[in-house]
């Protein structure tokens, strides 16, 4: 790992100022992605701004029909939060199935969403639920936030602070894991909120997390497994790698969508 300076500011404002004032500064959340990347010398920040000292980023609450989760809330905390379990029970399950217990104790929801790994679980959940992203500068919709592989709308000096999840009528998420890494080969999130039905896919898209309009239309008419049985996924949208070909991923998406609908409907 190259050397760097380190700061642990107590407020978002000070963190934002520190981030803006040094070129190549980077925010550190749980470090479960960033530290391995720095060890491989794929990232070389001049300064790390540790968000771990900002108490305001670590709370979970319910506000105006929304479940509000602070960016620094760990996967472990989401998985075990009564607030999350009562508002969106299967969102707690999403968190419980990320990585292993040690990763869940440090990895954060904000770090996962800001990183936008094409195989990460939270992006699918956030896109299906139509979450809103609050940052140190503005508010973004999920559509605007996710911009492709490892890319989001966050600017260099912008900090993700809160994620606001609409409380859905129903929500389910099913993942087919790579047997070695346990990351999703295909993960499908299905949500019905006041804004309608949305289906989002992770792990499989050539350009990261994406929605499936045909499934959304079918489930809007009838929220049942039978409604999506005949819907095929365009393989041109999907990635192919040593772990799975696009055609296999297309099939997995259908099966995971079925499981997610079953979970949501139960």
């Amino acid at each position, binding site marked *: *790992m*190259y*050397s*760097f*300076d*380190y700061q*642990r500011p107590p407020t978002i404002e000070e963190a934002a100022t520190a981030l803006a004032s040094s070129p190549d500064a980077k925010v*550190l959340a749980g*470090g*479960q992605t960033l*530290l*391995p990347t*720095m*060890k491989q010398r794929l990232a070389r920040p001049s300064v*790390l701004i*540790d968000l*771990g000292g900002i108490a305001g980023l670590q709370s979970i609450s319910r506000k105006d029909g929304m479940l509000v989760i602070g960016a620094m809330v760990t996967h*472990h905390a989401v998985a075990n939060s009564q607030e999350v379990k009562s508002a969106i029970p299967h969102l707690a399950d999403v968190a419980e199935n990320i*990585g*292993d*217990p*040690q*990763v869940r*104790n*440090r990895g954060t929801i904000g770090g996962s969403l800001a990183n936008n790994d094409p195989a990460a679980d939270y992006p699918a959940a956030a896109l299906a639920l139509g979450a809103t992203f609050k940052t140190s500068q503005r508010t973004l919709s999920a559509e605007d936030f996710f911009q492709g592989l490892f890319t989001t709308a966050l600017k260099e000096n912008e900090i993700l602070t809160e994620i606001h999840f609409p409380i859905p009528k129903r929500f389910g998420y099913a993942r087919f894991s790579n047997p070695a890494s*346990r990351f999703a080969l295909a993960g499908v999130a299905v949500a019905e909120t006041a804004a309608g039905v949305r289906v989002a896919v992770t792990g499989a898209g050539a350009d990261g997390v994406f929605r499936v309009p045909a499934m959304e239309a079918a489930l809007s008419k009838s929220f049942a497994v039978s409604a999506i049985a005949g819907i095929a996924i365009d393989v041109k949208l999907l990635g192919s790698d040593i772990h799975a070909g696009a055609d296999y991923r297309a099939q997995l998406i259908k099966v995971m969508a079925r499981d997610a609908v079953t979970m949501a409907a139960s």
Partner: protein
Amino acid sequence: MKVTLTVNGQSVIEDIEPRTLLVQLLRDRLQLTGTHVGCDTSQCGACVVHVDGRAIKSCTALAVSCEGTKVITIEGIGTEDHLHPMQEAFREHHALQCGYCTPGMIMSSIDIVNRKGHKLDEHTIREELEGNICRCTGYHKIVKAVGAGAAAMAKSSA
């Protein structure tokens, strides 16, 4: 940069580079070499320690991020004369061969008991040990030991 934390009940103040990993502070500065580095890529769990009561991989945490915390390593859970019940269970059930993964396995196992209680079924133990890799044993005896150690911890804390 100065970092102050408590390690196995002792207050520690060290002057370190920000890039120092927690495992480097423990092994290289404090000579607590029971905590191992198996992969250095957050996969194997040989480096697991407890920070403020939670198991983490110390190869994937900056020591400076642990400012003000209480760290417990494998050296801090028992003594040679009085092994921790989980250590005793690993010995009793022959849950190690080379022993490289063992400190991390034991720290993770104690964390499982802290979160899930003293009655652990095999499925739970296997799921919860996802972050710990053993190249020798084939896991069966580890799983047995964790179940027995969990039960023994109930008795010893009673």
